[in-house]
């Protein structure tokens, strides 16, 4: 297992390098003079020159690139242009909220999606199947901010079951959990849809296999056949789909945080956009790049856990 992990980590290095390079290029394609974009066209030449030096824009491009990479390898994301605080500190302050939200959404996605998919496959074209198909169609169709607003209006504004203004910062764990329910369900909705679809189609295929017939012939109870034998073989596509759409989840987390006014990376991105804080924006892009590479590694490692055959390949 250790060798498998080491090999997977080594594979991530070129990907990370490429993604970081992409971030470097992206931030530098600002049309026109970036100092004017940041300071506005009323800024004095002296102020613009000072900013240029602070951002290292007076250096040649390769030197900027080198500094960028060295800085990141030291775990330094630079300082915010507006507050002058280290960006790493800002990120650490809100990261737990985003992770909390994403993990909760993942749990909801699996806890609802797998049973729904299994049920739909067992009662094909029955009521459960139709419900699962409609539900996953809706889940795939809802943009995160649309479902978020509808949930907010229904359950927070009208029914008052949950707070309108997020209390994610509360020290009281019950209050904190209450603030998590709607956003997590909103973010989890799309995962439920993906997981339901892949579980349903995987189960339909698995239930037609020879080993299932053998298990039936042996007289094993139906519950055991479905949940132990068939589902085990559907786990790989389920993990794949979760890994594949973790990126979508991270993107939607940003929108969900905005709608529910939760602290997190999403709110930080909006702050950076509003204040034209390109240093903060670049730092946040680096963080999301890391998040995606880590998510991909975790997905591959889960393959090894779910299916022992993967490790030996």
């Amino acid at each position, binding site marked *: 297992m250790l060798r498998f992990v080491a090999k997977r980590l080594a594979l991530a290095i070129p*990907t990370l390098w*490429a*993604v970081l390079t*992409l971030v470097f290029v*992206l*931030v530098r*394609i*600002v*049309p026109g003079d970036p100092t004017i*974009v940041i300071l506005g066209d009323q800024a004095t030449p002296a102020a613009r020159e000072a900013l240029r030096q602070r951002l290292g824009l007076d250096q040649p491009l390769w030197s900027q690139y080198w500094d960028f990479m060295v800085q990141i390898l030291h775990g330094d994301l630079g300082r915010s242009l507006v507050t002058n605080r280290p960006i790493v500190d800002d990120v650490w302050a809100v990261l737990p909220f985003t992770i909390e939200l994403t993990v909760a959404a993942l749990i909801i996605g699996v806890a609802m999606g797998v049973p729904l998919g299994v049920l739909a496959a067992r009662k094909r074209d029955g009521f459960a199947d139709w419900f699962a198909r409609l539900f996953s*169609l*809706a889940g*795939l*169709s*809802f*943009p*995160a*901010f*649309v479902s978020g*607003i*509808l949930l*907010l*209006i229904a359950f927070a*504004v*009208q029914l008052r079951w949950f707070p*309108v203004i997020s209390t994610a910062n509360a020290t009281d764990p019950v209050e904190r959990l209450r603030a998590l329910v709607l956003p997590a369900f909103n973010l989890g909705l799309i995962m439920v849809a993906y997981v339901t679809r892949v579980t349903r189609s995987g189960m339909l295929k698995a239930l037609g296999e020879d080993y299932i017939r053998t298990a039936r012939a042996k007289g094993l109870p139906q519950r055991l056949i479905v949940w132990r034998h068939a589902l085990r073989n559907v786990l790989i596509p389920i993990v794949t789909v979760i890994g*594949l759409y973790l*990126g*979508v989840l*991270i*993107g*939607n987390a*940003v*929108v969900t945080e*905005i*709608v529910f006014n939760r602290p997190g990376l999403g709110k930080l*991105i*909006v702050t950076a*956009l*509003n204040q034209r804080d390109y240093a903060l*924006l670049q730092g946040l*892009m680096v963080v*999301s*790049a890391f998040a*995606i*590479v880590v998510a*991909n590694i975790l997905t591959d490692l889960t393959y090894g856990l779910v299916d022992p055959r993967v490790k030996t390949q």
Partner: protein
Amino acid sequence: MSDAAAPAPAPAKVSLAAPSAWRRATRSGGLVVGLLLVIGMILVAAFAPQVAPYDPDAQDVLLNLVGPTADHWFGTDAFGRDVLSRVIWGARISLFVGFVATMAGVVFGTVVGVISGYYGGKVDKAITAATDVLLSFPQLIMGLMLVAVLGPNLQNLILAIAITAVPAFVRVARGSTLAMKERDFVDACRALGYGDLRIMFLHVLPNIMDEVVVMASLWLATAIRTEATLSFIGLGVPPPTATWGGIVREGFDNLLDGWWLSVFPSLAILLVMIALNLIGDGLRDATDPRAPQ
């Protein structure tokens, strides 16, 4: 996405042009419903000046924040503007951005993908590596960054969404081309002395269009959703131009004043998403021989 990119396994795919594919597609009903909805919405958007009951930008301070009535089906907003008219006019920008950005992504991505798959070698390796890196970034974050850097306006919005679409189509077109170029008819073309360009774009391309079309229908939903989301975040076409995402944003800012401000434009977005997903699923099932008959 990945199964469309894999070299076509046996059994062979059913061509979308085949009559049987059309029968399969229409039998489920989803495709027909989706198509009717989308055509309806395009017509409403195209004839917005005739269909919309009011001027979408006309303000009436005496009639602000009125809930749905017989005169204003979707109510009025904080400036007294008719929400229904704004949703109808908003469809123009939202659908336009979605279609143009998707088309640009399809054309560019497919051409690059076909070239990459057809020639192979170092160019193919480089293109595949670049595609993998671009695809590893969440599409929404990528679009957000691009618009943030380029500046929010209609042109940049289309450009940014098109750029995020390109890698997906490169991958699909490349994978299908790889499978197609081993086929006998390509050998025959070579034997006849046809040039590479002619083979690629007159013979290979028509044969991989099914995969591209299915992908494009699903991507159209993604493009419209991205435009709406970016507008909602404040990175869309600047106000007062009505776009679906922008109207939802305005409604969201006045959430406690009236539910109708955000609910109706939200439902418009949802409706087009459902319609496009129905079309995408229907087309995919129609070309997949393993799908239930």
